[in-house]
């Protein structure tokens, strides 16, 4: 394999991994607060369609990004309201959000299918982009990819180093104890849910404005579910989410690489990899009660009501 091919593969890997990274980082924060939101797919699609529509109408990608992120957040707040105020089941509500978002986004974007826009362009960072191999891999992307790097850094700091991150983890580990300590559990969870929605919206926006600047019904094609798998795969750690997103991104372009090398393997079989790997990681985690306690937010998926 020659140098240029490797460089191009790594470049494509980072690009493909960006929506996975964004949505998984958002879900990480959400799950750290103890809330399991299965609505990733729906929130991403709403972000993607709103970002695309607004960009088409205003001609301004930045306004599109803002509205898309806002749309993802609104969807997440709908979920948060149901789960926390109306006390609905998290799994079923998240699923409802995915189904609803799929339908609503297709409905809203119906007349925008096939239109083209001027999406994000790549910006080569001077000096850094000329480093062999990693120069192209990391420093020749569009603005949203750089933003995802920055968000990764911010979330890494937030989870490991900040006081607020500790509070978030306290709520996720034991909401009752956190409440006894005087933490506003419902509010903190609302913020975590909203942040997760905003990140999913951004992931969707990236798909419709940068990755393939167009809108197609159901264009996320299961990326939200991979994001969800990624959080488990990464055992709820941000740095492993980055590595995992790159691995999963590589897996989804691997069939191109293998074809390039002259081998034949079905892309469908390769597309199964992320899901199978996630099941294996889940099993390894759950068979060991100590590991499970160490890594999984203890109250994940369990309801907490204001009155309790």
């Amino acid at each position, binding site marked *: 394999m020659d140098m240029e091919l490797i460089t191009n593969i790594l470049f494509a890997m980072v690009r493909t991994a960006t929506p996975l990274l964004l949505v998984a980082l958002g879900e990480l924060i959400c799950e750290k607060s103890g809330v*399991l939101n*299965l609505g990733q797919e*729906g929130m991403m699609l709403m972000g993607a369609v709103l970002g695309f529509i607004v960009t088409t109408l205003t001609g301004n990608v930045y306004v599109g990004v803002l509205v898309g992120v806002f749309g993802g957040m609104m969807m997440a707040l*709908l979920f948060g309201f*149901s789960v926390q*105020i*109306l*006390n*609905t*089941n998290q*799994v*079923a*509500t998240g*699923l*409802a*959000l*995915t*189904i*609803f*978002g*799929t*339908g*609503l*986004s*297709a*409905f809203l974007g*119906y007349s925008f299918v096939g239109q083209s826009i001027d999406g994000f362009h790549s910006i080569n960072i001077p000096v850094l982009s000329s480093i062999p191999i990693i120069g192209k891999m990391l420093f020749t992307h569009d603005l949203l990819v750089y933003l995802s790097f920055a968000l990764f850094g911010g979330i890494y700091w937030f989870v490991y180093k900040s006081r607020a991150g500790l509070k978030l983890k306290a709520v996720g580990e034991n909401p009752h104890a956190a409440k006894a300590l005087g933490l506003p559990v419902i509010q903190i969870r609302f913020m975590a849910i909203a942040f997760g929605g905003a990140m999913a919206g951004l992931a969707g926006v990236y798909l419709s404005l940068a990755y393939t600047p167009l809108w197609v*019904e*159901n264009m996320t094609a*299961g990326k939200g*579910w991979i994001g*969800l*798998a990624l959080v*488990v795969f990464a055992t709820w750690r941000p740095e492993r989410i980055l590595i995992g997103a790159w691995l999963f991104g590589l897996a989804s372009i691997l069939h191109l690489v293998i074809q390039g090398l002259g081998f034949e393997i*079905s892309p*469908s*079989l390769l*597309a*199964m990899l992320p*899901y*199978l790997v*996630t*099941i294996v990681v*889940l*099993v390894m985690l*759950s*068979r060991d*009660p100590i590991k*499970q306690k160490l890594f999984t937010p203890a109250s994940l*998926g369990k309801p907490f009501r204001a*009155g309790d």
Partner: protein
Amino acid sequence: MNFKIEKRAEASELMRWLSPFIAIGATLVITTLFFLALNKSPLEVFYNFFIAPVQDLYGVSELAVKVAPLMLIAAGLLICYKANIWNIGAEGQFIFGGLIGGWAGLQFLDVNSPWVLVPVMLAGVVAGAAWAGIAAFLKTVFNTNEILTTIMLNYVALNLLNFAVHGPLRDPAGFNFPESAMFNSSAAMPIIWQDTRMHLGIIIAVIACIGVWFILSRMHLGFRIRVRGADEHAARFAGFNAKAITWFCLLISGALAGLAGVIEVTGPIGQLTPSISPGYGYAAIIVAFLGRLHPIGIIFSATLMGLLYLGGELVQMFLGLPMALTSLFQGLLLLFILAGDLLITHRFVPKWKKPKADEVPNALAEGAK
């Protein structure tokens, strides 16, 4: 907000019955607003969605074709949810059942015996059960969360199907389309209404619902399932074998979803294609909830959900609206059903109103706990 949410002293029986209807009403109100905002006549859309599809007898028969898989899958999911086992994998079990059943069907392309039906259906049932069995195995042996494994397995099944129709099971005479050969009609469920596509599946689905009702309310096994669902600790103290219940629930629900898959593939679709399920496995979750997790309830809710699918196709044809409107209705409906459950255990009271006398001792009793 001038209202506050207050816990009822006792769960309201009235609301238990009313809440699905409230959810349907709320969904209609919200979608009306949507259509108005988009300058579509809500009446026209609703007419095409809910009335036009079943205006003639052929429409009714087509409705039965859509309802059969939904009802079959939901009957199985019901058992899981009663036991508090979150099987989200009906979609994958449906697909895998359809794939393996379809593979079996392809082995009998030239055989014209009514007995072909037996191995074909059996293959689908066993495959569906096996797919759910993976989750049961991981749950009982490694204590792995079934929500996540069943979701992941949905995508694995979908990709397996894609692989099969693009590769090993592709029709050699099919001009490279990702489709298998057409099945022999003897591999399909017999048609029970001449000149339509209505097949025996709908009868089997109703029987499955009655069977599930019998298990849940007339057998000790059903009692154990319900106790496990209500309180896992209580079930353990009573000495019920939680692992056996997990296996039973997942296998039954996988078997029914697999059966629905193979019936759909060999019957109405007639061949394996990359899109054998229009999301039936997910829609059946809504059916189960809308039917209030009751076997008789899901007969009605499956009918409504089938109508949504049928209406979605019609609206796409006549009004040029996306088929995804079906998902819009489904998602809203599920959100409102879940939210509506609050009305059973809670009520809205104006903030200025004092609590009723009979609730004070109750509150005290709770405090004393």
